[in-house]
């Protein structure tokens, strides 16, 4: 095979390879580019010739690209840029304009020096790789992971934090309280006669009652307060920067709101109430479990006292 044929083969490969190839001179004028560049930019190599690259693509961050390219001219070193730095250098359409999720082509680039026989670098070459799939997959993975994280923390019925995650937050609030000496209160609450609601109206009605309770808790609490579903019909709340006295005001408001807002199930009004127990943080507690027990005791007191009421744990008993 003669050299000319081989040369033509090589040229054909360069023309057809699915990577952008550009040669620039010292003044950033395009010397030539391949079929990839022609097709994605809509500008033929002939028309691009001798035009400054920044004139052809005003979207390029000139300072940024020059900064990268100058180090190649100066150091005769390859330079790489990745899509995480800049999603793209040239704003090209996604290769899959119909089914692709990204609006444009994510690109990695390589810049390398073209040395003359004398070892001088008067020209550089840019390689443009399409990495849209990688970037899109990573974005999808990130979203899926964020969703998983949220799912693993929340209770499916109410959307409040589940018991495991809420207890984790309680532990860290307990440690913080020991350090900062800010007042902090814990509320445990329970729906009164929940079993009776289930038995009378069915489990779906029971679910509605639980959902409605969690909605009211979310509406009443401050943004910084931490609400969770502790178990079946039991809920728990950490009130930040709140004394037992102020927690009692909140608890009573919550109790009254729920008392006044029956759940409508199959056009029947279900009236129900809640009982609450409050325990302010105290240095006597050796762990967050002691604190939980204290609020549980107060809740038990409310139940014993006839339900639909609040009780505050007395640290002296």
């Amino acid at each position, binding site marked *: 095979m003669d050299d000319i044929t081989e040369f033509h083969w090589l040229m054909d490969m360069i023309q057809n390879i699915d990577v952008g190839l550009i040669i620039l001179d010292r003044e950033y004028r395009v010397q030539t580019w391949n079929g990839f560049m022609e097709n994605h930019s809509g500008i033929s190599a002939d028309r691009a010739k001798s035009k400054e690259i920044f004139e052809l693509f005003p979207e390029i961050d000139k300072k940024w690209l020059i900064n990268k390219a100058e180090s190649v001219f100066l150091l005769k*070193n390859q330079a790489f840029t990745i899509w995480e730095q800049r999603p793209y250098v040239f704003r090209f359409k996604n290769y899959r304009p119909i089914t692709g999720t990204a609006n444009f082509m994510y690109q990695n680039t390589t810049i390398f020096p073209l040395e003359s026989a004398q070892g001088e670098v008067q020209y550089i070459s840019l390689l443009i790789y399409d990495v849209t799939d990688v970037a899109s997959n990573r974005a999808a993975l990130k979203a899926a992971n964020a969703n998983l994280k949220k799912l693993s923390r929340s209770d499916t019925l109410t959307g409040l934090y589940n018991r495991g995650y809420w207890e984790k937050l309680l532990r860290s609030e307990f440690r913080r309280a020991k350090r900062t000496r800010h007042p902090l209160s814990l509320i445990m609450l329970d729906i009164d006669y929940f079993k009776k609601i289930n038995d009378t109206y069915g489990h779906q009605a029971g679910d509605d009652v639980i959902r409605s309770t969690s909605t009211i808790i979310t509406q009443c609490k401050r943004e910084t307060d931490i609400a969770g579903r502790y178990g079946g019909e039991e809920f728990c709340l950490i009130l930040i920067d709140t004394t037992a006295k102020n927690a009692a005001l909140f608890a009573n408001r919550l109790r009254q709101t729920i008392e006044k807002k029956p759940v409508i199930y199959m056009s029947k009004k279900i009236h129900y109430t809640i009982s609450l127990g409050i325990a302010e943080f105290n240095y006597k507690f050796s762990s967050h479990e002691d604190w939980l027990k204290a609020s549980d005791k107060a809740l038990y007191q409310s139940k014993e006292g006839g339900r639909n009421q609040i009780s505050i744990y007395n640290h002296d008993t």
Partner: protein
Amino acid sequence: MDTNDLKLEEDYIDCFQEIANVAMGRAADLLARILEVFIILPIPNVNLLEASELKMALSAIDENEQVSAVCQGFIGGGLSGEALLIFNDTSFTDIAKLNKNKAIKEADESLELEILMDTSNILIGACLKGIAEQLDINFSQGHPTVLGRHVNISDLVKNNDQRWKKTLAIEINYTIENHNVNCDLLLLFTEDSLKMLKEKANYLLS
């Protein structure tokens, strides 16, 4: 594989160290020219690392939120491996001050990435070029990947347990004089590169 291939005699260690010395000196010179500072070079460390040792080193990066790392694969002339640049995050602010193109005092996340990429382009590129020239070969380099940002490092090594036992590691620590800039360049060669590296070394030693 012959077990002899997986041993590293003193002579070879010296020879690889010398090759690394020349290559890293070159890289430091380029960095010094760009930043106009004096770079302090220690003697490169040449070691055969067990997979578990590398894993430990990489997990240390993972646990330590104070470091960032870039890795870049290379292959050519019968050798292959990955270059790993580990960058102390406290270095960013100082190197941002040195880089005169950017009038930013505090390094934000995107600037950190730029600095990381620029530094790795220079150091990894020059080091590999220096090694390739001495061995009379040519490396192709893959695109760099920033570790730790999207990738869980422990996952990276976890899946590779079966493929290799040992890796030849050349470790170079760069420090910039009078500045709080510190980075570690690790060149990791695969097990099967060792044979070719030794052949090349024999040629240089004879």
